Protein backbone atom coordinates (compact mmCIF):
# COMPACT_ATOMS: atom_id res chain seq x y z
CA UNK A 1 0.00 0.00 0.00
CA UNK A 2 1.21 3.48 -0.86
CA UNK A 3 1.86 5.86 1.99
CA UNK A 4 1.44 9.53 1.24
CA UNK A 5 2.76 10.48 4.68
CA UNK A 6 6.15 12.18 4.45
CA UNK A 7 8.97 11.24 6.82
CA UNK A 8 9.77 14.08 9.19
CA UNK A 9 13.27 15.46 8.64
CA UNK A 10 15.25 18.41 9.94
CA UNK A 11 17.34 20.74 7.85
CA UNK A 12 20.89 20.13 9.01
CA UNK A 13 22.76 22.40 6.68
CA UNK A 14 21.96 24.86 3.89
CA UNK A 15 24.56 25.72 1.30
CA UNK A 16 24.13 28.44 -1.27
CA UNK A 17 25.50 26.88 -4.43
CA UNK A 18 25.48 29.53 -7.12
CA UNK A 19 26.39 33.17 -7.48
CA UNK A 20 22.80 34.21 -8.16
CA UNK A 21 21.71 32.63 -4.88
CA UNK A 22 18.86 30.78 -6.57
CA UNK A 23 20.25 27.33 -5.95
CA UNK A 24 20.70 25.98 -2.48
CA UNK A 25 21.61 22.52 -1.30
CA UNK A 26 19.69 21.27 1.71
CA UNK A 27 21.15 18.55 3.87
CA UNK A 28 18.30 16.73 5.56
CA UNK A 29 18.50 14.31 8.46
CA UNK A 30 15.74 11.99 9.53
CA UNK A 31 14.02 12.61 12.84
CA UNK A 32 13.26 8.94 13.16
CA UNK A 33 16.14 6.48 13.24
CA UNK A 34 14.09 3.55 11.93
CA UNK A 35 12.99 5.57 8.94
CA UNK A 36 16.57 6.57 8.23
CA UNK A 37 17.61 2.95 8.19
CA UNK A 38 14.69 1.93 6.01
CA UNK A 39 15.45 4.56 3.39
CA UNK A 40 17.07 2.99 0.30
CA UNK A 41 17.45 4.77 -2.98
CA UNK A 42 19.37 4.51 -6.22
CA UNK A 43 20.91 7.44 -8.06
CA UNK A 44 18.42 9.04 -10.45
CA UNK A 45 15.46 8.62 -8.15
CA UNK A 46 13.58 11.58 -6.76
CA UNK A 47 11.61 12.37 -3.63
CA UNK A 48 8.79 14.65 -2.67
CA UNK A 49 9.95 17.49 -0.46
CA UNK A 50 7.08 18.45 1.73
CA UNK A 51 6.51 21.75 3.52
CA UNK A 52 3.49 21.88 5.78
CA UNK A 53 1.27 24.74 4.68
CA UNK A 54 2.94 25.03 1.29
CA UNK A 55 2.82 21.70 -0.51
CA UNK A 56 5.03 19.07 -2.04
CA UNK A 57 7.52 19.20 -4.89
CA UNK A 58 9.38 16.42 -6.70
CA UNK A 59 13.15 16.95 -6.50
CA UNK A 60 15.93 14.65 -7.65
CA UNK A 61 18.02 13.18 -4.86
CA UNK A 62 21.49 14.73 -5.05
CA UNK A 63 23.14 12.46 -2.53
CA UNK A 64 24.42 9.02 -3.30
CA UNK A 65 23.09 6.03 -1.35
CA UNK A 66 26.68 5.61 -0.22
CA UNK A 67 26.53 8.89 1.70
CA UNK A 68 24.72 7.51 4.69
CA UNK A 69 22.90 9.36 7.39
CA UNK A 70 21.52 12.24 5.39
CA UNK A 71 19.94 13.25 2.12
CA UNK A 72 20.95 16.10 -0.11
CA UNK A 73 18.64 18.07 -2.38
CA UNK A 74 19.72 20.95 -4.54
CA UNK A 75 16.73 23.16 -5.19
CA UNK A 76 16.21 26.01 -7.61
CA UNK A 77 13.96 28.76 -6.35
CA UNK A 78 11.10 28.91 -8.80
CA UNK A 79 7.58 28.40 -7.46
CA UNK A 80 5.58 28.57 -4.28
CA UNK A 81 7.14 25.66 -2.39
CA UNK A 82 10.72 26.23 -3.49
CA UNK A 83 10.49 29.90 -2.55
CA UNK A 84 9.25 28.93 0.91
CA UNK A 85 11.98 26.31 1.18
CA UNK A 86 14.65 28.86 0.35
CA UNK A 87 13.42 30.97 3.26
CA UNK A 88 13.85 28.14 5.77
CA UNK A 89 16.65 27.87 8.29
CA UNK A 90 18.76 25.05 9.61
CA UNK A 91 17.11 23.12 12.39
CA UNK A 92 13.63 23.55 10.97
CA UNK A 93 11.36 20.64 10.25
CA UNK A 94 10.09 19.54 6.89
CA UNK A 95 9.12 16.28 5.23
CA UNK A 96 10.47 13.88 2.64
CA UNK A 97 8.41 11.29 0.82
CA UNK A 98 10.05 8.64 -1.32
CA UNK A 99 12.27 7.49 -2.82
CA UNK A 100 10.22 7.60 -6.00
CA UNK A 101 10.77 6.60 -9.62
CA UNK A 102 13.14 4.10 -11.18
CA UNK A 103 16.61 5.66 -11.10
CA UNK A 104 19.58 4.93 -13.34
CA UNK A 105 20.33 1.27 -14.16
CA UNK A 106 23.41 1.11 -11.96
CA UNK A 107 23.05 -2.60 -11.30
CA UNK A 108 21.89 -3.68 -14.72
CA UNK A 109 22.70 -1.92 -17.94
CA UNK A 110 25.51 0.19 -16.50
CA UNK A 111 27.38 -2.59 -14.76
CA UNK A 112 30.82 -3.26 -16.23
CA UNK A 113 30.46 -0.60 -18.90
CA UNK A 114 32.14 2.69 -19.67
CA UNK A 115 29.95 5.47 -18.39
CA UNK A 116 29.60 8.89 -19.96
CA UNK A 117 27.76 11.42 -17.84
CA UNK A 118 26.67 14.63 -19.54
CA UNK A 119 25.10 17.35 -17.42
CA UNK A 120 23.97 20.87 -18.14
CA UNK A 121 23.05 23.48 -15.56
CA UNK A 122 21.43 22.39 -12.33
CA UNK A 123 20.27 19.10 -13.86
CA UNK A 124 23.58 17.80 -12.52
CA UNK A 125 22.04 16.90 -9.13
CA UNK A 126 21.12 13.26 -9.65
CA UNK A 127 24.24 12.83 -11.76
CA UNK A 128 26.34 13.95 -8.81
CA UNK A 129 24.66 11.15 -6.86
CA UNK A 130 25.49 8.76 -9.68
CA UNK A 131 29.12 9.80 -9.98
CA UNK A 132 29.73 9.43 -6.27
CA UNK A 133 28.09 6.03 -6.33
CA UNK A 134 30.21 4.95 -9.28
CA UNK A 135 33.39 6.12 -7.60
CA UNK A 136 32.49 4.19 -4.47
CA UNK A 137 31.99 1.08 -6.60
CA UNK A 138 34.77 1.91 -9.02
CA UNK A 139 35.73 -1.68 -9.81
CA UNK A 140 32.22 -2.47 -11.11
CA UNK A 141 32.44 0.00 -13.97
CA UNK A 142 34.76 0.83 -16.86
CA UNK A 143 36.01 4.23 -17.85
CA UNK A 144 34.04 7.13 -16.41
CA UNK A 145 33.73 10.40 -18.33
CA UNK A 146 31.97 13.31 -16.63
CA UNK A 147 31.04 16.31 -18.76
CA UNK A 148 29.39 19.21 -16.98
CA UNK A 149 28.63 22.69 -18.20
CA UNK A 150 27.09 25.80 -16.75
CA UNK A 151 26.51 29.32 -18.00
CA UNK A 152 29.26 30.88 -15.87
CA UNK A 153 31.82 29.58 -13.40
CA UNK A 154 29.68 30.95 -10.59
CA UNK A 155 26.75 28.87 -11.72
CA UNK A 156 28.58 25.55 -11.33
CA UNK A 157 27.21 23.44 -8.51
CA UNK A 158 29.29 21.46 -6.04
CA UNK A 159 32.44 23.46 -6.77
CA UNK A 160 34.49 22.04 -3.90
CA UNK A 161 33.69 18.53 -4.97
CA UNK A 162 34.49 19.27 -8.59
CA UNK A 163 38.00 20.21 -7.49
CA UNK A 164 38.31 17.00 -5.50
CA UNK A 165 37.12 14.89 -8.41
CA UNK A 166 39.52 16.65 -10.78
CA UNK A 167 42.38 15.31 -8.69
CA UNK A 168 41.33 11.72 -9.22
CA UNK A 169 42.82 9.80 -12.09
CA UNK A 170 40.05 7.27 -12.39
CA UNK A 171 37.50 9.84 -13.60
CA UNK A 172 37.79 11.81 -16.79
CA UNK A 173 36.36 15.20 -15.81
CA UNK A 174 35.43 17.97 -18.29
CA UNK A 175 33.95 21.10 -16.77
CA UNK A 176 32.95 23.85 -19.15
CA UNK A 177 31.30 27.24 -19.08
CA UNK A 178 29.41 28.91 -21.89
CA UNK A 179 31.57 32.00 -22.20
CA UNK A 180 35.04 33.17 -21.25
CA UNK A 181 35.05 34.53 -17.73
CA UNK A 182 37.69 36.26 -15.62
CA UNK A 183 39.58 33.79 -13.49
CA UNK A 184 38.33 30.77 -15.43
CA UNK A 185 41.07 28.74 -17.06
CA UNK A 186 39.04 25.64 -17.78
CA UNK A 187 37.09 24.64 -20.87
CA UNK A 188 34.89 27.18 -22.63
CA UNK A 189 32.03 26.14 -24.90
CA UNK A 190 28.58 24.61 -24.85
CA UNK A 191 28.11 21.12 -23.54
CA UNK A 192 27.25 19.60 -26.95
CA UNK A 193 30.49 20.91 -28.46
CA UNK A 194 32.59 19.62 -25.58
CA UNK A 195 30.73 16.30 -25.63
CA UNK A 196 31.53 15.96 -29.35
CA UNK A 197 35.21 16.53 -28.60
CA UNK A 198 35.71 14.32 -25.57
CA UNK A 199 33.05 11.61 -25.74
CA UNK A 200 34.56 8.17 -26.11
CA UNK A 201 33.55 5.67 -28.73
CA UNK A 202 30.29 3.91 -27.99
CA UNK A 203 31.66 0.39 -27.60
CA UNK A 204 30.46 -1.16 -24.31
CA UNK A 205 29.28 2.23 -23.04
CA UNK A 206 26.20 4.00 -21.81
CA UNK A 207 25.55 7.71 -21.55
CA UNK A 208 23.44 9.49 -18.96
CA UNK A 209 22.29 12.91 -20.13
CA UNK A 210 20.47 15.46 -18.01
CA UNK A 211 20.02 19.07 -18.90
CA UNK A 212 17.76 21.57 -20.56
CA UNK A 213 15.88 20.15 -23.58
CA UNK A 214 17.82 22.36 -25.96
CA UNK A 215 21.13 20.94 -24.68
CA UNK A 216 19.92 17.36 -25.07
CA UNK A 217 18.73 18.11 -28.57
CA UNK A 218 22.15 19.38 -29.67
CA UNK A 219 24.17 16.81 -27.74
CA UNK A 220 22.72 13.89 -29.63
CA UNK A 221 24.04 14.61 -33.18
CA UNK A 222 27.76 14.61 -32.21
CA UNK A 223 27.24 11.39 -30.26
CA UNK A 224 25.35 9.78 -33.10
CA UNK A 225 28.12 10.81 -35.46
CA UNK A 226 30.60 8.62 -33.62
CA UNK A 227 28.19 5.71 -33.51
CA UNK A 228 26.13 6.04 -30.33
CA UNK A 229 22.66 4.49 -30.54
CA UNK A 230 19.47 5.52 -28.78
CA UNK A 231 19.47 2.39 -26.61
CA UNK A 232 22.72 3.44 -24.99
CA UNK A 233 21.51 6.86 -23.99
CA UNK A 234 19.58 7.42 -20.77
CA UNK A 235 17.60 10.59 -20.24
CA UNK A 236 15.64 11.82 -17.27
CA UNK A 237 12.25 13.42 -17.96
CA UNK A 238 10.35 15.76 -15.73
CA UNK A 239 6.72 16.77 -15.71
CA UNK A 240 4.35 18.32 -13.22
CA UNK A 241 3.73 15.73 -10.52
CA UNK A 242 1.41 15.46 -7.57
CA UNK A 243 1.34 11.96 -6.09
CA UNK A 244 4.65 10.60 -7.33
CA UNK A 245 3.20 7.10 -7.12
CA UNK A 246 1.59 6.68 -10.53
CA UNK A 247 -1.94 7.43 -9.40
CA UNK A 248 -2.87 11.05 -10.00
CA UNK A 249 -1.97 11.07 -13.73
CA UNK A 250 -0.48 14.57 -13.82
CA UNK A 251 2.88 13.55 -15.25
CA UNK A 252 1.59 11.39 -18.07
CA UNK A 253 3.39 11.41 -21.40
CA UNK A 254 0.99 9.39 -23.46
CA UNK A 255 0.45 6.14 -21.58
CA UNK A 256 3.71 6.53 -19.65
CA UNK A 257 3.76 7.97 -16.15
CA UNK A 258 7.02 9.78 -15.59
CA UNK A 259 6.86 9.34 -11.82
CA UNK A 260 6.37 5.59 -11.89
CA UNK A 261 7.82 4.37 -15.19
CA UNK A 262 10.56 6.99 -15.12
CA UNK A 263 11.95 9.50 -14.65
CA UNK A 264 14.83 7.67 -16.34
CA UNK A 265 14.17 6.40 -19.86
CA UNK A 266 16.34 5.32 -22.74
CA UNK A 267 16.22 7.59 -25.71
CA UNK A 268 14.56 4.77 -27.64
CA UNK A 269 11.71 4.76 -25.14
CA UNK A 270 11.38 8.52 -25.20
CA UNK A 271 11.24 8.61 -28.98
CA UNK A 272 8.19 6.35 -28.99
CA UNK A 273 6.21 8.75 -26.84
CA UNK A 274 4.22 11.80 -27.86
CA UNK A 275 6.17 14.98 -27.18
CA UNK A 276 4.28 15.93 -24.04
CA UNK A 277 7.13 16.68 -21.67
Amino acid at each position, binding site marked *: *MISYLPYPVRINEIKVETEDGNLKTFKLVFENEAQRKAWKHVPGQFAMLS*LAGQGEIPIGIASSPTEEGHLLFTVNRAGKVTTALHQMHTGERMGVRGPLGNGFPIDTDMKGKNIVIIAGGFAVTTLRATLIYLMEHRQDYGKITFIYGARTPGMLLYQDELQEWAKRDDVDLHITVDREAPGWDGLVGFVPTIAGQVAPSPGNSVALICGPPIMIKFTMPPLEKIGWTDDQVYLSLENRMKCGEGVCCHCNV*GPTLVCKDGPVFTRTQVKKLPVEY
Partner: protein
Amino acid sequence: MKVFRLSQTELDSMVQGWSQNRRVYRPAAGRQQSAQADCAPGWERVAGSSPLTVATGPSKTSVKTFLFPQPETMQTYTLKSSDPDKGLLKEPEKTTGKQIIVGLRPCDARSVKLNNLPFREDPFYQASLARTVMVGFTCNTMCATCFCDQMGGSPMGTEGLDIAISQVDGTMIAEVLTPAGEELIADLSLTPAEDSDINALAERRKDCPQADSAKLDALKSRDLNKLYGAPVWQALGESCINCGACTFNCPTCYCFDVQDEVVRGQGRRIRYWDSCMFPLYSLHTTGHNPRGQKMQRTRNRFMHKLKYFPDRYGPFSCVGCGRCVQDCPVNIDIREVIHDLLAVE
Protein backbone atom coordinates in the same frame (compact mmCIF):
# COMPACT_ATOMS: atom_id res chain seq x y z
CA MET B 1 -25.95 -16.06 -3.91
CA LYS B 2 -29.25 -15.37 -2.22
CA VAL B 3 -32.17 -13.98 -4.21
CA PHE B 4 -35.20 -12.27 -2.68
CA ARG B 5 -38.47 -10.85 -3.77
CA LEU B 6 -39.27 -7.34 -2.60
CA SER B 7 -42.30 -5.09 -2.66
CA GLN B 8 -41.84 -1.32 -2.75
CA THR B 9 -42.89 -1.17 0.90
CA GLU B 10 -40.39 -3.83 1.90
CA LEU B 11 -37.65 -2.03 0.01
CA ASP B 12 -38.54 1.26 1.67
CA SER B 13 -38.60 -0.17 5.15
CA MET B 14 -35.36 -2.05 4.51
CA VAL B 15 -33.58 1.15 3.40
CA GLN B 16 -35.06 3.08 6.31
CA GLY B 17 -33.90 0.37 8.67
CA TRP B 18 -30.33 0.77 7.38
CA SER B 19 -30.52 4.53 7.75
CA GLN B 20 -31.22 4.19 11.47
CA ASN B 21 -27.62 3.47 12.34
CA ARG B 22 -25.68 3.90 9.12
CA ARG B 23 -25.23 6.60 6.55
CA VAL B 24 -27.38 5.82 3.54
CA TYR B 25 -27.24 7.91 0.38
CA ARG B 26 -29.39 7.96 -2.73
CA PRO B 27 -29.39 10.02 -5.92
CA ALA B 28 -31.21 13.31 -5.45
CA ALA B 29 -34.49 13.42 -7.31
CA GLY B 30 -34.67 15.84 -10.22
CA ARG B 31 -32.53 18.97 -10.46
CA GLN B 32 -31.15 19.63 -7.06
CA GLN B 33 -31.92 23.16 -5.87
CA SER B 34 -29.54 22.96 -2.99
CA ALA B 35 -26.98 20.39 -1.92
CA GLN B 36 -27.18 18.96 1.58
CA ALA B 37 -24.51 20.16 3.96
CA ASP B 38 -23.13 16.67 4.67
CA CYS B 39 -23.55 15.20 1.23
CA ALA B 40 -21.99 15.72 -2.18
CA PRO B 41 -24.00 17.57 -4.87
CA GLY B 42 -26.39 15.32 -6.73
CA TRP B 43 -26.89 12.95 -3.80
CA GLU B 44 -28.93 13.10 -0.63
CA ARG B 45 -28.93 11.34 2.67
CA VAL B 46 -31.84 9.00 3.20
CA ALA B 47 -33.94 10.16 6.11
CA GLY B 48 -37.65 9.91 6.86
CA SER B 49 -39.96 7.70 4.94
CA SER B 50 -40.15 8.97 1.38
CA PRO B 51 -40.49 6.02 -1.01
CA LEU B 52 -37.32 5.05 -2.81
CA THR B 53 -37.62 5.48 -6.53
CA VAL B 54 -34.82 6.22 -8.91
CA ALA B 55 -35.24 8.03 -12.22
CA THR B 56 -34.31 6.22 -15.42
CA GLY B 57 -30.65 6.43 -16.33
CA PRO B 58 -27.58 7.20 -14.26
CA SER B 59 -27.71 9.64 -11.36
CA LYS B 60 -26.81 13.28 -12.06
CA THR B 61 -23.40 13.01 -10.43
CA SER B 62 -21.43 9.83 -10.22
CA VAL B 63 -20.78 7.53 -7.31
CA LYS B 64 -17.06 8.31 -7.30
CA THR B 65 -17.70 11.10 -4.82
CA PHE B 66 -18.18 8.47 -2.08
CA LEU B 67 -14.98 6.58 -2.80
CA PHE B 68 -12.83 9.44 -3.91
CA PRO B 69 -14.30 12.37 -1.98
CA GLN B 70 -13.93 15.91 -3.19
CA PRO B 71 -11.90 16.93 -1.18
CA GLU B 72 -10.20 14.23 0.89
CA THR B 73 -7.90 15.07 3.78
CA MET B 74 -4.56 13.30 3.38
CA GLN B 75 -2.71 14.75 6.35
CA THR B 76 -3.24 17.31 9.06
CA TYR B 77 -0.79 19.50 10.93
CA THR B 78 -0.38 22.57 13.04
CA LEU B 79 1.74 25.58 12.26
CA LYS B 80 1.50 27.14 15.70
CA SER B 81 4.95 27.96 16.96
CA SER B 82 4.02 26.97 20.49
CA ASP B 83 3.34 23.38 19.43
CA PRO B 84 6.35 21.01 19.44
CA ASP B 85 4.69 19.15 16.56
CA LYS B 86 4.73 22.27 14.39
CA GLY B 87 5.01 21.29 10.75
CA LEU B 88 4.68 17.58 11.45
CA LEU B 89 2.27 15.90 9.08
CA LYS B 90 -0.01 13.34 10.64
CA GLU B 91 -2.54 10.86 9.34
CA PRO B 92 -6.04 12.30 9.69
CA GLU B 93 -8.65 10.75 11.91
CA LYS B 94 -10.12 7.83 10.01
CA THR B 95 -13.76 7.99 9.03
CA THR B 96 -15.41 4.87 10.25
CA GLY B 97 -18.81 3.28 9.87
CA LYS B 98 -20.38 1.84 6.78
CA GLN B 99 -21.86 4.03 4.10
CA ILE B 100 -24.56 2.53 1.96
CA ILE B 101 -25.19 3.85 -1.53
CA VAL B 102 -28.65 2.99 -2.75
CA GLY B 103 -29.94 3.42 -6.27
CA LEU B 104 -26.76 3.59 -8.27
CA ARG B 105 -26.79 2.05 -11.72
CA PRO B 106 -24.65 -0.81 -13.07
CA CYS B 107 -22.46 1.63 -15.01
CA ASP B 108 -21.45 3.44 -11.83
CA ALA B 109 -20.87 0.18 -9.99
CA ARG B 110 -18.57 -0.90 -12.76
CA SER B 111 -16.69 2.40 -12.57
CA VAL B 112 -15.75 1.61 -8.99
CA LYS B 113 -14.04 -1.55 -10.22
CA LEU B 114 -12.27 0.29 -13.02
CA ASN B 115 -10.99 3.03 -10.74
CA ASN B 116 -9.73 0.37 -8.44
CA LEU B 117 -7.07 -0.46 -11.04
CA PRO B 118 -5.05 2.75 -10.63
CA PHE B 119 -6.10 3.02 -6.98
CA ARG B 120 -5.36 -0.56 -5.98
CA GLU B 121 -2.46 0.58 -3.80
CA ASP B 122 -4.09 3.81 -2.67
CA PRO B 123 -4.82 3.72 1.07
CA PHE B 124 -7.64 6.25 0.97
CA TYR B 125 -9.55 4.66 -1.87
CA GLN B 126 -9.16 1.22 -0.36
CA ALA B 127 -10.40 2.45 3.01
CA SER B 128 -13.45 4.05 1.40
CA LEU B 129 -14.09 0.95 -0.66
CA ALA B 130 -13.98 -1.23 2.44
CA ARG B 131 -16.65 0.79 4.19
CA THR B 132 -18.97 1.27 1.23
CA VAL B 133 -21.84 -1.05 0.41
CA MET B 134 -23.49 -0.55 -2.94
CA VAL B 135 -27.10 -1.43 -3.52
CA GLY B 136 -27.77 -0.85 -7.18
CA PHE B 137 -30.79 -0.78 -9.48
CA THR B 138 -30.34 -2.49 -12.80
CA CYS B 139 -31.75 -0.76 -15.87
CA ASN B 140 -34.78 -1.89 -17.81
CA THR B 141 -34.29 0.78 -20.40
CA MET B 142 -31.23 2.42 -21.83
CA CYS B 143 -31.33 6.15 -22.37
CA ALA B 144 -30.43 7.62 -25.74
CA THR B 145 -27.08 8.64 -24.24
CA CYS B 146 -26.31 5.26 -22.64
CA PHE B 147 -23.74 2.99 -24.24
CA CYS B 148 -22.62 0.75 -21.39
CA ASP B 149 -22.99 -2.34 -23.58
CA GLN B 150 -20.37 -1.03 -26.01
CA MET B 151 -17.88 -0.35 -23.23
CA GLY B 152 -18.03 -3.85 -21.79
CA GLY B 153 -20.87 -3.42 -19.31
CA SER B 154 -24.55 -4.19 -19.49
CA PRO B 155 -27.74 -2.46 -18.33
CA MET B 156 -28.55 -5.53 -16.21
CA GLY B 157 -24.96 -6.01 -15.07
CA THR B 158 -24.08 -6.60 -11.42
CA GLU B 159 -20.32 -6.14 -11.48
CA GLY B 160 -19.21 -4.11 -8.48
CA LEU B 161 -22.55 -4.25 -6.69
CA ASP B 162 -23.20 -5.82 -3.31
CA ILE B 163 -26.94 -6.06 -3.87
CA ALA B 164 -28.56 -5.71 -7.29
CA ILE B 165 -32.26 -4.92 -7.45
CA SER B 166 -34.07 -5.56 -10.72
CA GLN B 167 -37.62 -4.76 -11.73
CA VAL B 168 -39.12 -7.77 -13.39
CA ASP B 169 -42.79 -7.59 -14.39
CA GLY B 170 -43.83 -5.36 -11.53
CA THR B 171 -41.89 -7.11 -8.78
CA MET B 172 -38.48 -6.33 -7.48
CA ILE B 173 -35.89 -9.03 -7.28
CA ALA B 174 -32.88 -8.48 -5.09
CA GLU B 175 -29.73 -10.47 -5.75
CA VAL B 176 -27.39 -10.43 -2.78
CA LEU B 177 -23.98 -10.81 -4.33
CA THR B 178 -21.32 -10.31 -1.67
CA PRO B 179 -20.72 -10.91 2.04
CA ALA B 180 -21.12 -7.15 2.59
CA GLY B 181 -24.53 -7.40 0.97
CA GLU B 182 -25.45 -10.40 3.08
CA GLU B 183 -24.52 -8.52 6.20
CA LEU B 184 -27.03 -5.83 5.29
CA ILE B 185 -29.92 -8.26 5.08
CA ALA B 186 -28.78 -10.59 7.85
CA ASP B 187 -31.43 -9.57 10.38
CA LEU B 188 -34.26 -9.13 7.92
CA SER B 189 -36.89 -11.67 7.09
CA LEU B 190 -37.18 -11.34 3.35
CA THR B 191 -39.21 -13.49 1.01
CA PRO B 192 -36.93 -15.77 -0.99
CA ALA B 193 -37.53 -15.49 -4.71
CA GLU B 194 -39.47 -18.24 -6.45
CA ASP B 195 -37.82 -20.22 -9.19
CA SER B 196 -40.12 -18.48 -11.60
CA ASP B 197 -38.76 -15.10 -10.48
CA ILE B 198 -35.21 -16.26 -10.93
CA ASN B 199 -36.02 -17.61 -14.35
CA ALA B 200 -37.79 -14.41 -15.34
CA LEU B 201 -34.76 -12.41 -14.21
CA ALA B 202 -32.40 -14.65 -16.15
CA GLU B 203 -34.64 -14.30 -19.16
CA ARG B 204 -34.63 -10.51 -18.85
CA ARG B 205 -30.88 -10.50 -18.49
CA LYS B 206 -30.50 -12.65 -21.55
CA ASP B 207 -32.69 -10.34 -23.62
CA CYS B 208 -31.09 -7.06 -22.61
CA PRO B 209 -28.16 -5.59 -24.57
CA GLN B 210 -25.09 -7.69 -23.81
CA ALA B 211 -21.61 -6.48 -23.12
CA ASP B 212 -20.18 -6.35 -26.58
CA SER B 213 -16.88 -4.64 -26.85
CA ALA B 214 -15.57 -6.53 -29.85
CA LYS B 215 -15.94 -3.53 -32.12
CA LEU B 216 -14.26 -1.14 -29.72
CA ASP B 217 -11.57 -3.55 -28.71
CA ALA B 218 -10.18 -3.00 -32.17
CA LEU B 219 -9.06 0.40 -30.82
CA LYS B 220 -6.78 -1.22 -28.31
CA SER B 221 -4.59 -2.74 -30.97
CA ARG B 222 -4.32 0.49 -32.96
CA ASP B 223 -0.99 2.24 -33.03
CA LEU B 224 -0.73 4.87 -30.34
CA ASN B 225 1.00 7.44 -32.48
CA LYS B 226 -1.47 7.07 -35.32
CA LEU B 227 -4.39 7.70 -32.98
CA TYR B 228 -2.46 10.56 -31.44
CA GLY B 229 -2.00 12.13 -34.83
CA ALA B 230 -5.57 11.52 -35.99
CA PRO B 231 -7.23 14.42 -37.83
CA VAL B 232 -10.27 14.36 -35.54
CA TRP B 233 -8.50 16.20 -32.72
CA GLN B 234 -8.15 19.50 -34.51
CA ALA B 235 -11.89 20.12 -34.89
CA LEU B 236 -12.67 18.72 -31.45
CA GLY B 237 -10.06 20.88 -29.81
CA GLU B 238 -11.39 23.90 -31.61
CA SER B 239 -14.92 23.54 -30.26
CA CYS B 240 -13.97 22.29 -26.77
CA ILE B 241 -14.02 25.11 -24.21
CA ASN B 242 -11.78 23.15 -21.81
CA CYS B 243 -14.14 23.17 -18.86
CA GLY B 244 -14.27 20.23 -16.50
CA ALA B 245 -17.94 19.34 -16.85
CA CYS B 246 -17.07 16.03 -18.50
CA THR B 247 -14.26 15.07 -16.16
CA PHE B 248 -16.01 16.01 -12.93
CA ASN B 249 -19.20 14.20 -13.82
CA CYS B 250 -17.33 11.24 -15.27
CA PRO B 251 -17.33 8.24 -12.94
CA THR B 252 -13.99 6.99 -14.25
CA CYS B 253 -11.99 10.22 -14.31
CA TYR B 254 -9.78 9.93 -11.28
CA CYS B 255 -7.02 12.55 -11.55
CA PHE B 256 -6.37 14.55 -8.44
CA ASP B 257 -4.39 17.53 -7.33
CA VAL B 258 -2.89 17.98 -3.88
CA GLN B 259 -2.90 21.20 -1.94
CA ASP B 260 -2.31 22.57 1.52
CA GLU B 261 -4.92 24.64 3.30
CA VAL B 262 -4.22 26.53 6.48
CA VAL B 263 -6.76 28.36 8.58
CA ARG B 264 -5.71 30.08 11.78
CA GLY B 265 -2.66 27.94 12.30
CA GLN B 266 -4.36 24.60 11.65
CA GLY B 267 -3.55 22.99 8.36
CA ARG B 268 -4.45 20.07 6.24
CA ARG B 269 -3.20 18.60 3.03
CA ILE B 270 -6.06 17.66 0.78
CA ARG B 271 -6.49 16.00 -2.52
CA TYR B 272 -9.29 17.13 -4.77
CA TRP B 273 -10.47 16.38 -8.28
CA ASP B 274 -8.41 17.82 -11.06
CA SER B 275 -9.09 17.84 -14.76
CA CYS B 276 -6.65 17.35 -17.62
CA MET B 277 -8.76 19.96 -19.43
CA PHE B 278 -7.23 22.72 -17.31
CA PRO B 279 -3.96 24.33 -18.43
CA LEU B 280 -2.65 24.28 -14.86
CA TYR B 281 -2.82 20.49 -14.85
CA SER B 282 0.41 20.06 -16.79
CA LEU B 283 2.05 23.47 -16.37
CA HIS B 284 5.69 23.42 -15.29
CA THR B 285 6.98 26.05 -12.90
CA THR B 286 9.26 27.28 -15.67
CA GLY B 287 6.17 28.32 -17.62
CA HIS B 288 6.61 25.49 -20.11
CA ASN B 289 3.40 23.56 -20.67
CA PRO B 290 3.64 20.19 -22.41
CA ARG B 291 -0.06 20.45 -23.24
CA GLY B 292 -0.31 24.19 -23.69
CA GLN B 293 -2.92 24.06 -26.43
CA LYS B 294 -6.60 23.41 -25.94
CA MET B 295 -6.54 20.68 -28.55
CA GLN B 296 -3.75 18.80 -26.79
CA ARG B 297 -5.76 18.72 -23.58
CA THR B 298 -8.94 17.55 -25.26
CA ARG B 299 -6.95 14.84 -26.97
CA ASN B 300 -5.35 13.77 -23.74
CA ARG B 301 -8.70 13.10 -22.10
CA PHE B 302 -10.00 10.87 -24.86
CA MET B 303 -6.66 9.19 -25.45
CA HIS B 304 -6.45 8.45 -21.75
CA LYS B 305 -9.86 6.84 -21.70
CA LEU B 306 -9.52 4.92 -24.92
CA LYS B 307 -5.83 4.17 -25.31
CA TYR B 308 -3.49 5.07 -22.45
CA PHE B 309 -5.63 3.47 -19.74
CA PRO B 310 -6.28 0.23 -21.69
CA ASP B 311 -2.59 0.04 -22.57
CA ARG B 312 -1.76 0.18 -18.90
CA TYR B 313 -4.59 -1.65 -17.23
CA GLY B 314 -6.59 -3.53 -19.88
CA PRO B 315 -10.15 -2.18 -20.02
CA PHE B 316 -11.25 1.20 -21.34
CA SER B 317 -11.61 3.92 -18.74
CA CYS B 318 -15.23 4.52 -19.64
CA VAL B 319 -18.40 2.81 -18.56
CA GLY B 320 -20.72 4.37 -21.12
CA CYS B 321 -22.93 6.22 -18.66
CA GLY B 322 -23.34 9.10 -21.10
CA ARG B 323 -22.99 11.88 -18.53
CA CYS B 324 -20.30 13.64 -20.53
CA VAL B 325 -22.50 13.45 -23.61
CA GLN B 326 -25.37 15.05 -21.73
CA ASP B 327 -23.37 17.68 -19.90
CA CYS B 328 -20.89 18.82 -22.51
CA PRO B 329 -21.62 22.49 -23.21
CA VAL B 330 -20.47 22.10 -26.81
CA ASN B 331 -21.87 18.66 -27.47
CA ILE B 332 -18.64 16.73 -27.80
CA ASP B 333 -19.91 13.17 -27.95
CA ILE B 334 -17.46 10.45 -27.00
CA ARG B 335 -19.39 7.99 -29.17
CA GLU B 336 -18.62 10.11 -32.21
CA VAL B 337 -14.99 10.39 -31.12
CA ILE B 338 -14.77 6.60 -30.88
CA HIS B 339 -16.38 6.29 -34.28
CA ASP B 340 -13.87 8.69 -35.79
CA LEU B 341 -10.93 6.97 -34.12
CA LEU B 342 -12.03 3.57 -35.38
CA ALA B 343 -11.79 5.01 -38.86
CA VAL B 344 -8.08 5.79 -38.32
CA GLU B 345 -6.05 3.15 -40.10
